[in-house]
């Protein structure tokens, strides 16, 4: 009786693991070109292969890695701007974290800490879908997140290897990889009126600030101004 319960439990876990692998496969494959681009951009920005790969290993946050690499490539080696921008870009994790908090709070702390490290937009979305469809499962979240992490790191390595065979990346237009990558991320977000206004505000402020302010402060100033405008408009909309 006990043995069969145990076996049934094991089957359930195996089933959950299988579902997790199956559901994350398309998302995980989708990140491969981004990881390769990240590796190529690292070398294009004159970072070493080890620097580029260790960023993927310990930071593990696509958008902010692209931004950090771009800034390092532009010759910014002062902390402040890169770290502050990274913080701003990743603040959205707070929202995701707080929506998972009621479930994750039950887990042992080391597991919470690990799952938090591995949390990304994509794995968060998969985990929330699983919660809505069935229930929260730490095993599901762990498998999906680990798969995503491994593929991100390995595809960064692939990008670094690929880029090391290209003698002068700039002649191949590789410095255009950054704006092109950001365009692919940005355009799906411009789906409503407020987003378009935020886009316009950020465009105008960033160009003027880039003309008249030193360094890369225009990024932070434009980001703060435009996102606050968006937040205020969103607030008004709710009152009306």
């Amino acid at each position, binding site marked *: 009786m006990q043995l069969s319960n145990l076996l049934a439990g094991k089957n359930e876990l195996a089933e959950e693991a299988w579902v997790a692998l199956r559901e994350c496969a398309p998302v995980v494959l989708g990140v491969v070109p981004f990881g390769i681009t990240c590796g190529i951009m690292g070398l294009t920005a004159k970072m070493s292969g080890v620097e580029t790969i260790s960023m993927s290993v310990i930071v593990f946050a696509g958008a902010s890695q692209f931004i950090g690499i771009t800034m390092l490539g532009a010759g910014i080696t002062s902390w402040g701007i890169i770290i502050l921008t990274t913080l701003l870009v990743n603040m959205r994790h707070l*929202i995701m974290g707080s929506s998972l908090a009621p479930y994750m709070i039950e887990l042992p702390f080391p597991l919470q800490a690990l799952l938090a490290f591995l949390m990304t937009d994509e794995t968060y979305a998969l985990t929330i879908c699983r919660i809505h469809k069935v229930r929260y499962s730490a095993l599901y979240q762990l498998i999906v997140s680990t798969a995503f992490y491994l593929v991100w790191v390995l595809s960064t390595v692939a990008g670094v290897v690929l880029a090391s065979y290209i003698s002068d990346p700039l002649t191949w237009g590789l410095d255009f990889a950054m704006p*092109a990558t950001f365009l692919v991320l940005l355009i799906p977000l411009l789906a409503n009126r407020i987003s378009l206004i935020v886009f316009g505000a950020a465009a105008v402020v960033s160009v003027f600030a880039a003309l008249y302010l030193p360094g890369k402060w225009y990024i932070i100033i434009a980001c703060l101004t435009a996102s606050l405008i968006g937040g205020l408009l969103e607030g008004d909309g709710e009152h009306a």
Partner: protein
Amino acid sequence: MRSEVFYIILGMTLVTYFTRIGALALFRFTGVPTWINRWLKYVPVAILTALIVPSLLLPKGYLDISLNNHYLIAGIVAAFVAYKSRNIIATLGIGMSIMFVLKLF
């Protein structure tokens, strides 16, 4: 590894981890306050725009709205491809090919 790069990567790691574990610690009982939620919703659009637009309009540090600005031309085409395809490989491929071709002339 250069030490200043190492410290930057380490700093990025720490602030990123703070945002990931932060909600579990800070807002575990209350949820994120509404005003933060509204504000953060538009941070991605704002920051991506602030990165893209100046890099296309001022690639060399001064405002350059002309046909000589290859970044601007390739950027407009890439934006169109990104809008139509939503595909990173197509956008990168076409955008970089245009950059490459323009540099030949």
